[in-house]
């Protein structure tokens, strides 16, 4: 279906199911309970999951398929964001033109950077992309302040022209919308102690992500994707057969830059603000980590990696000692203090430490990333049955 084989179609269906029911799945704990701290089903974080999912999917098209490790992908996300916010300032608060412009501008910028950087391979390529991204960041922060707003970034203002929109009433704030449907509007469902939020912005972003995901499956399975994999496995041999690999890698680079631009545009659509630190090398590094953490070269891995990192950043960092004391209040005082003291360095302001440990554990024990972890569990569940049969057969052996 949709030109996909059965396995891929199932995967797409699973992803679609997960994203559509995310407001339920991410809010497993009732409001007001101690575990509600771990709920992630609020609009902002759900939006971030899918947006960074798109970013990582796009990155994976380049890195996972061709093996070219770009260390400057955040630049495309940033450039896309700036394009989107300018559309919102000049044209309309409708998100469609903003997103289209974000993709186009990021694509053009990627073409430029890719054309130059792809002249080199390996680490030399990585450093070239890094250099372009760092230059974009440094200039956006400083001398380009008139265009980028510098440190304080850009936001839609009352006084912006917005030629397509009707004038705002005095005191109203400009809001990103889709033909009048505000990105921040939500539908809430109370079921007992649970509260589920269905946010318009999230669903728009989720649909975009599904399209992006579908497209990436098609790319992975296409002859073009095959060609990219050939680049990864042995570019030299490919060149010897008379094939020029440059147009393919450049196309992959531009596509993945456009994905980043789309993510940047969506970011602005969901939260109308752009700042230059979005382009800093740590942001580029983050998407690399997301992809590797999830499993480079796999379809779903990057999305999982993005989810895990964003979850830690937004949930673990918010646990403070007061909450810990609440959790362990049932314990005797001395024991409570001891446990809180032991856990405290890993939560709240120590969330980076937990993140670092998770990186190391994953890469040491799951060389294929989280996807491999999933496969192992799946194999264990299936193999558990098989294993028990093995055992059964073994245990019968001595009887012979």
């Amino acid at each position, binding site marked *: 279906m949709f030109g996909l084989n059965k396995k891929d179609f199932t995967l797409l269906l699973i992803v679609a199911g997960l994203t559509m029911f995310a407001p339920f799945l991410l809010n497993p704990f009732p409001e007001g309970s101690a575990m509600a701290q771990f709920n992630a089903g609020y609009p902002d974080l759900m939006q971030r999951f899918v947006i960074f999912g798109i970013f990582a999917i796009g990155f994976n098209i380049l*890195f996972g398929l061709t*093996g070219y*490790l770009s260390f400057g992908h955040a630049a495309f996300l940033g450039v896309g964001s700036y394009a989107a916010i300018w559309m919102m300032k000049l044209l309309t608060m409708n998100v469609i033109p903003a997103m289209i412009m974000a993709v186009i501008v990021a694509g053009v910028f990627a073409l430029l950077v890719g054309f*130059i950087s792809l*002249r*080199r*391979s*390996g*680490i*030399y390529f990585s*450093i*070239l992309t*890094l*250099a*372009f991204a*760092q*230059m974009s960041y*440094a*200039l956006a*922060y*400083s*001398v*380009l302040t008139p265009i980028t707003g510098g440190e304080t970034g850009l936001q839609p203002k009352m006084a912006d022209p917005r030629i397509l929109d009707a004038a705002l009433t005095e005191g109203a704030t400009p809001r990103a919308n889709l033909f009048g449907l505000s990105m921040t509007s939500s539908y809430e469902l109370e079921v007992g102690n649970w509260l589920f939020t269905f946010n318009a912005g999230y669903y728009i972003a989720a649909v975009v992500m599904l399209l992006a995901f579908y497209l990436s499956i098609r790319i992975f399975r296409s002859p073009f994707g095959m060609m990219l994999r050939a680049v990864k496995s042995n*570019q030299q041999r490919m060149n010897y057969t008379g094939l020029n690999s440059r147009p393919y890698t450049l196309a992959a680079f531009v596509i993945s830059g456009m994905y980043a631009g789309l993510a940047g545009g969506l970011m602005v659509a969901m939260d109308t603000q752009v700042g230059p630190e979005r382009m800093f*090398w*740590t942001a580029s*590094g983050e998407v*690399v*980590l997301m992809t*590797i*953490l999830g499993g*480079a070269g796999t379809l779903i891995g990057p999305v999982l990696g993005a989810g895990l990192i964003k979850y830690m950043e937004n949930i673990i960092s918010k646990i403070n000692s007061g909450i810990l004391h609440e959790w362990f209040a049932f314990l005797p005082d001395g024991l409570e203090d001891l446990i809180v003291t032991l856990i405290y*360095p890993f939560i709240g302001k*120590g969330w*980076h*430490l937990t*993140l*670092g*440990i*998770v*990186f*190391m554990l*994953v*890469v*040491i024990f799951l*060389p294929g990333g989280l996807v491999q972890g999933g496969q192992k569990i799946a194999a264990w569940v299936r193999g558990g049955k098989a294993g028990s049969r093995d055992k059964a057969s073994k245990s019968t052996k001595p009887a012979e």
Partner: protein
Amino acid sequence: MDAIILQILNGLDKGSAYALIALGLTLIFGTLGVVNFAHGALFMIGAFCAVTLSRILTLSHTVIDETKTDFLGNPLKVDVPYIYDIFGQATGDVIIDWAVPLSILFAIPVMVGVGVIMERGLIKHFYKRPHADQILVTFGLAIVLQEVIKYFYGANPIPTPAPSAFTGSFDFGAMLGFDPNTIIYPYWRLVYFAFAAIIIGAVFAFLQFTTFGMVVRAGMADRETVGLLGINIDKRFTIMFGLAAAVAGLAGVMYTPINSPNYHMGMDFLVLSFVVVVVGGMGSLPGAVLAGFLLGILESIASMTQVLDVLPGLNQIIIYLVAIIILLTRPRGLMGRKGVMEE
């Protein structure tokens, strides 16, 4: 003219820091082939060796001074370092004053230890893994090391001054016949430059003129063959890792009076050191040193107001701009070897 001399002098010093960091990184990255994102963290740990030693030297017991009061109006508690009790106040002060140079002795064993443990415990298992895995694991390690330091020392920079004998600056201008005060240079930075030159020279001599160095160089070129000859190359690579960590750490120790160390200083230098190594060319020690000095000098010149008036913002991007130009004109950086990290 004097302005340019001044900036070249300045760039030499900046460059010596870059070269020293890049030298350590290139030993690991350019030769062992490990993308070590924890290299900045090693530099940072070196710097904190200096902080730790000065903390140890100033370990104190409190004496209550009844004549003064603290901010809450209670009697003031005065810290008296134990070292005063041992050597007397005058000698004690001198020792505390010289904490940073003394830290060199302290840092060498610590850093070699850290390097060896890191290699044996972690990196060893990643030689054959893809670079992506190396990035993830070393980045994770860097974060962990950084957070541990933050946990114990806080996030603020910690002042670690040079011995008072080295405060102030040397007037080159007067020596060269320019007006006084036109070309001045801090003594400590001259010390840093000399120190870097010695370390760089020592590393080169070690690799060039010792049998050990010869084997390591052979191992870099063709690890398998050297292994087949019955030489335990693994052990030597471990030692190399320890050496690289020590070089990074010493760069950090001596850097503390220039910039007060804080827990994320390693990350600030990480990207830069990768750029320097790659511009120098993968697998080339002289390349890394050359690139370090080149970028240091260009960065200094780009920060001159005469330059900025013409090209505003050039100081923001100069390093990256130069990197792009060099990599486009010289495919393997300044002195890179063919086939290293190119796939």
